[in-house]
């Protein structure tokens, strides 16, 4: 059952590469339904039968490679399938006027999906490297699609950061294999000790993954890449792609290398997160372009993910569990909210023909649905109740109180205010009466898919129980 989730996107990647142009679009919906169905069935299977692993080619790890599906993995698989489906429906209509680009978009989209699923399921350090490279190259290809100079520059910076990051990660993997003789993650988490080799390996991997996750101060490549790409690409990149490298980072710190990391190192990671929240919010507050605002908001929101490390390392088990749950919820809520935000902003830009925030006047009257979607996702990003973002921040704050780390409490609570400061820039302008531009008609599905994503981000506030209950199903010890 488990490898089906890899086979479907890979097969559709090939189909959309080889079939005649008009078919590439037709197969998207069936593919998405299959993918979503497979993810849900796997969710149910894991929920009823518990975590499973799968020895590929019938070779047991460490000789072969295993896939591992536990509660956390299937949550991420379902998230990926759902967000990808809504972004793809948006892309079907959005790319209508990009004749050449859409032909290459779909193979890259399916490969991107395959690599994400592969990363969530991987249980082997080197396999994660190959997955990261597949993810990186397909994401870079999508950023460069329009072949315009700024997009090409953004793609180059992104590619260089991704390549350097994966080599640093690979160097760490080389040290781990040299020191322990195996690459299988479940085996390593029982063997790895806190010696200097492990510490250097964890440091190398962390630098590489921080660069790929665009954590301050290594975030320089993200705003141009996410802000400059086509709207559905931006949504996929911000909602899903950066989360993959964060997932591996969390795996390294809390599982594989748990004995090698120190409390002070975890506090340093938290400090990077605080820097990301401040710097990202400040830039989002200053930028004149609406898509760059959303991209800088991603830089800031990624900072909250980093709170996991100080809140979960060196504290009581209850506090660590809450930190972990809060981080997962934040990851999910941010994925939905940010995808909704990029899609709604993309529709606005498409309709008015530019992205200058100062000239957004009057869009509220013409495109209420897109602006409503933006507003709902902003509620979740700010952490106002009821929303997934609120529940996530609530758990993180409680965890900070329980472990007595008041400085992180201030950072998390203050971050919400900073978010409010930059999202209200959009509302302030868009509700003014003056209409300074012609508004082109856009397909209603564009606004609808954004709205649906935003509703899910809000709805997560009422249904946080589900992902958290699923998450509890781990294979023992692993986060």
């Amino acid at each position, binding site marked *: 059952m488990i490898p089906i989730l890899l086979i479907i996107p890979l097969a559709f990647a090939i189909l959309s590469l080889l079939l005649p142009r008009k078919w590439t679009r037709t197969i998207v919906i069936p593919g998405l339904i299959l993918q979503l169905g497979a993810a849900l069935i796997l969710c149910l299977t894991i929920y009823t039968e518990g975590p499973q692993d799968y020895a590929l080619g019938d070779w047991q790890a460490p000789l072969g490679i295993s896939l591992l599906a536990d509660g956390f993995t299937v949550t991420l698989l379902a998230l990926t399938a759902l967000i990808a489906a809504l972004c793809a429906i948006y892309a079907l209509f959005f790319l209508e006027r990009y004749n050449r680009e859409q032909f290459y978009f779909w193979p890259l989209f399916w490969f991107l999906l395959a690599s994400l699923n592969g990363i969530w399921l991987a249980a082997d350090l*080197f396999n994660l*490297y*190959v997955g990261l*490279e597949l993810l*990186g*190259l397909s994401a*870079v*290809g999508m950023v*460069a699609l329009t*072949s*315009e*100079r700024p997009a*090409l*520059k953004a*793609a*180059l910076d992104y*590619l*260089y950061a991704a*390549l*350097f990051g994966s*080599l640093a990660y*690979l*160097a760490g*993997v*080389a*040290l781990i*294999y*040299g*020191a322990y*003789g195996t690459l299988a993650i479940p085996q390593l988490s029982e063997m790895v000790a806190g010696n200097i080799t492990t510490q250097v390996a964890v440091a190398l991997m962390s630098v590489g993954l921080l660069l790929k996750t665009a954590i301050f101060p290594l975030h320089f490549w993200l705003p141009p890449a996410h802000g400059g790409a086509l709207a559905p690409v931006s949504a996929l990149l911000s909602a899903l792609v950066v989360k993959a490298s964060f997932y591996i980072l969390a795996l390294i710190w809390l599982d594989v290398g748990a004995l090698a990391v120190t409390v002070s190192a975890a506090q340093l990671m938290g400090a990077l997160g605080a820097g990301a929240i401040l710097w990202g919010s400040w830039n989002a507050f200053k930028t004149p372009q609406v898509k760059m605002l959303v991209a800088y908001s991603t830089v800031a929101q990624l900072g909250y993910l980093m709170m996991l490390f100080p809140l979960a390392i060196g504290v009581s088990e209850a506090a660590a569990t809450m930190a972990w749950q809060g981080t997962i919820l934040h990851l999910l809520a941010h994925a939905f909210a940010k995808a909704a935000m990029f899609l709604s902003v993309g529709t606005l830009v498409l309709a008015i023909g530019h992205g200058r925030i100062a000239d957004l006047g009057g869009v509220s009257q013409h495109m209420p649905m897109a602006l409503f979607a933006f507003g709902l996702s902003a509620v979740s990003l700010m952490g106002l109740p009821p929303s997934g973002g609120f529940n996530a921040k609530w758990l993180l704050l409680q965890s900070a109180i329980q472990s007595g780390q008041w400085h992180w409490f201030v950072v998390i609570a203050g971050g919400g205010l900073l978010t409010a400061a930059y999202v209200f820039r959009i509302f302030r302008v868009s509700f003014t009466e003056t209409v300074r531009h012609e508004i082109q008609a856009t397909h209603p599905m564009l606004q609808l898919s954004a709205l649906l994503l935003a509703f899910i981000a809000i709805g997560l506030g009422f249904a946080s129980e589900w992902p958290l209950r699923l998450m509890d199903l781990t294979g023992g010890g692993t986060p």
Partner: protein
Amino acid sequence: MGVDLWYALVGAVIIALSVFAFISARHLMKKLLAFNMMGSGVFLIMVGLPQHQHGVDAVPQALVLTGIVVAVSATALALVILRRYVRSGGDPAP
């Protein structure tokens, strides 16, 4: 101290040199060369360190082969984007 550990140590020196080149160079072509050099250093460690312990090991050798193919593909893509960027009037040494 065996020859395999030497390979790994030379790999460490190559990585350090290419980290210097990658960060200090401005020209995107030089950065790409630094990336390729760094790859070689990582591969030397990947094969050298395990073989230092128990002789010839096919697993890291196979991993390195995979790594090389991935690095070649990434380099080719980088070159294509770089050339397209320069053709559209971009500056390769910002």
